């Protein structure tokens, strides 16, 4: 009786699809870049594959992968990714491309972050000047972890900063909104910043330090978790993402005349 | 039709919030006619009626009908309860509960609407009727299932003279047609006009019970004498 009920409900609720469908959890910074709008149609054309994107924070993407609710994830947090694979949640990690982080702040730049020698120096100047606060995503995302790494490089303990450091626990867009509202400094990925529609009185102040490079990796989820995981499609997509076609699309992608991502996938 | 009587109440008591509002009451009501219950306000008339009808829970004592069929009673409340529907729908409601066929319902509704003179209001909301019209509707609704006995709790208490007369006329017709009436009233004139037998309640006890004529002309207790005179009795 119970079994019949489950079968009936499954049939009732089953999503009938003609093309192949796979789900990927991606980070908000990837979505904000707008690159998906270029890649997805091409994927559909070449592979007849409908890619459903769940745009979540890095932490949630990893959780979804762990639960087996998605077929692959695309994130940018190397340490977390390696742990993910080591724990058996993902089969492997494949580097696809990188973009970079930038330091954004008030046009007046009272702290002189724009003239810093490197990223750590920029953050150091911001808190030393204590003119405008610093807004952090504080959400354990790839961007947040990268930001924390710079603080460590600068030898600064954020616990000592008091009100100079505002942790909002939110996504990139929300953090940027808050920063604009407070006329504060903020650590952002380049794509999100370029695409952000509400820049207010903030401008890009510091960029270029290699410590700010942000590597994106693609991780197929371990199919042994459950029978719904389309590992076949995940591998197919991986092949496409590391192909010449993808390489061209990614390198050619620009916002306001600026290149965003650099393709750096190598043979497996 | 009146096979349900006699009605025997033995040792009936109703308590509310620690006080005895009715009882102990021992009463046997006979088969025919119209019984009127009189007594000052607060003497328990409403409670007694509700006990007899069976909508009041009694802890002590028993109410025994010769032949009880609950569908054969009907009750008219002091403030008529109108369903939030049209006049015709209110009338039809008790028959709908019995799953009576529609054509029979329509016949009955038409009959009663004519009898109480509300035919022109049949499609209007019952809640917009005047007090007298509502009470007539309530009585008609109570009678539409042809009950053996009709209980009425001071039906014309809040009505003007004209409405009261209409209602008494209706009750007179109905009683003559054989329906047993048990009615509470504080209108002594009404009591004299309609009663076959009378129950005089005082402080929740039956003080006197008997045929109307002798009771009104030669009351036996001082309290009843005072009450009939119009004094305040407690």
């Amino acid at each position, binding site marked *: 009786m119970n079994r019949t009920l*489950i079968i009936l*409900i*499954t049939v009732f*609720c*089953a*999503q009938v699809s003609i093309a192949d469908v796979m*789900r990927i959890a991606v980070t*908000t910074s990837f979505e*904000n870049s707008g690159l998906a709008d270029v890649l997805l149609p091409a994927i559909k054309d070449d592979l007849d594959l409908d890619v*459903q*994107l*769940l*745009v*979540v924070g890095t932490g949630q993407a990893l959780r979804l992968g*762990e*639960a*087996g*609710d998605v077929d692959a994830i695309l994130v940018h947090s190397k340490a977390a990714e390696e742990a993910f694979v080591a724990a058996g949640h993902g089969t492997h990690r494949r580097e696809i491309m990188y973009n970079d982080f930038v330091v954004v702040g008030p046009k007046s730049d009272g702290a002189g972050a724009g003239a810093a020698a490197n990223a750590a120096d920029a953050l150091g100047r911001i808190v030393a000047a204590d003119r405008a606060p610093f807004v952090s995503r504080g959400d354990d995302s790839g961007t947040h972890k990268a930001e924390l790494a710079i603080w460590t490089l600068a030898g600064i303990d954020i616990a000592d900063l008091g009100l100079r450091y505002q942790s909002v626990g939110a*996504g*990139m*867009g*929300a953090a*940027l*909104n808050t920063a604009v509202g407070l006329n504060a400094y903020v650590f952002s990925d380049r794509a999100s910043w370029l*695409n*952000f*529609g*509400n*820049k207010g009185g903030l401008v890009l102040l510091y960029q270029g330090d290699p410590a700010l490079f942000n590597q994106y990796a693609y991780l197929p989820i371990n199919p042994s*978790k*459950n029978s*719904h*995981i389309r590992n076949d499609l995940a591998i197919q997509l991986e092949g496409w993402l590391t192909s010449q076609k993808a390489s061209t699309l990614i390198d050619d992608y620009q916002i306001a005349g600026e290149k965003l991502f650099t393709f750096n996938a190598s043979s497996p | 039709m009146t096979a349900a009587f006699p009605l025997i109440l033995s040792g009936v008591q109703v308590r509310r919030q620690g006080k005895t509002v009715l009882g102990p009451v021992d009463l046997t009501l006979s088969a025919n006619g119209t019984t009127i219950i009189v007594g000052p306000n607060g003497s328990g008339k409403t409670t007694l009626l509700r006990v007899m*009808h069976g*909508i009041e829970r009694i802890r002590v004592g028993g109410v025994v009908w010769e032949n009880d069929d*609950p*569908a054969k*009673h*009907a*009750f008219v*409340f002091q403030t008529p*309860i109108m*369903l*939030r*529907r049209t006049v015709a729908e209110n009338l039809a*409601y*008790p028959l709908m*509960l019995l799953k009576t066929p529609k054509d029979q319902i329509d016949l009955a509704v038409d009959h009663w609407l004519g009898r109480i003179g509300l035919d022109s209001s049949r499609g*209007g*909301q019952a809640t*917009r009727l005047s007090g007298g019209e509502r009470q007539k509707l309530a009585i008609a609704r109570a009678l539409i299932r042809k009950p053996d006995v009709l209980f009425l709790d001071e039906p014309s208490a809040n009505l003007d003279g004209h409405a009261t007369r209409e209602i008494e006329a209706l009750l007179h017709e109905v009683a003559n047609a054989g329906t047993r009436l048990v009615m509470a009233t504080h209108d002594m004139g009404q009591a004299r006009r309609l009663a076959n037998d009378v129950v005089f309640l005082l402080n929740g006890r039956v003080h006197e019970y008997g045929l109307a004529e002798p009771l009104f002309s030669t009351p036996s207790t001082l309290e009843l004498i005072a009450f009939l005179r119009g004094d305040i009795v407690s």
Partner: protein
Amino acid sequence: MSIDEELWEISLRSLRVTLTALLIASIIAIPLGTYLAVQRFRCRRFVISIINALMGLPPVVVGLVVYIMLSRSGPFGVLNLLFTPTAMIIAQVIIITPVIASIAHQSMRELWAEYHDLLISLNTSKWQRILTLIHDGRRNLLTAALAGFGRAIGEVGAIMIVGGNIDHVSRVLTTAIALETGKGDFVLAMGLGFVLIGISILVNLAIHTLTRTEREGRW
């Protein structure tokens, strides 16, 4: 897909999800609220208090619980419902059923107090009482349902988690607004917000017109 087509798509999806949730929630909540008004039983006050308390359940928490239930690694994962409109409907049903039940119960209780003596006197069965109350109290029940609608159409936390805000699959007006706000595109977000309010007004108007509640004497 042009902006207009996209707008149509997510608006219709919003309506479909919320109206379906409303229908299911009402079917559960209205008889429940009415039953609680007419039937006395020992834990009745307790049940009513629980329902009232559930009204304050944060939608995000509901979303989280439903996600855990529907996740492939969860008890109902085999149904493969996660990240679909169906999952969103489930979450919204859970959120709005207490709201509708509570409001329905309140007005049914008042109506029952009015009808109590008459319906008992007429020897009605429990079921007949419930049907009579629902029929005669339908205007107030409609208000209860519309309150549920309002709660659902503007909800974003739960359906974001269980629906995933997937483009062309589970994106609705509220999640789209959240997305555009996050991107800093306030103009678009506001525009979508106005569409949402407009739809809400239209639904309310449509329902009131269909039931002719303002007509003289019927209210």
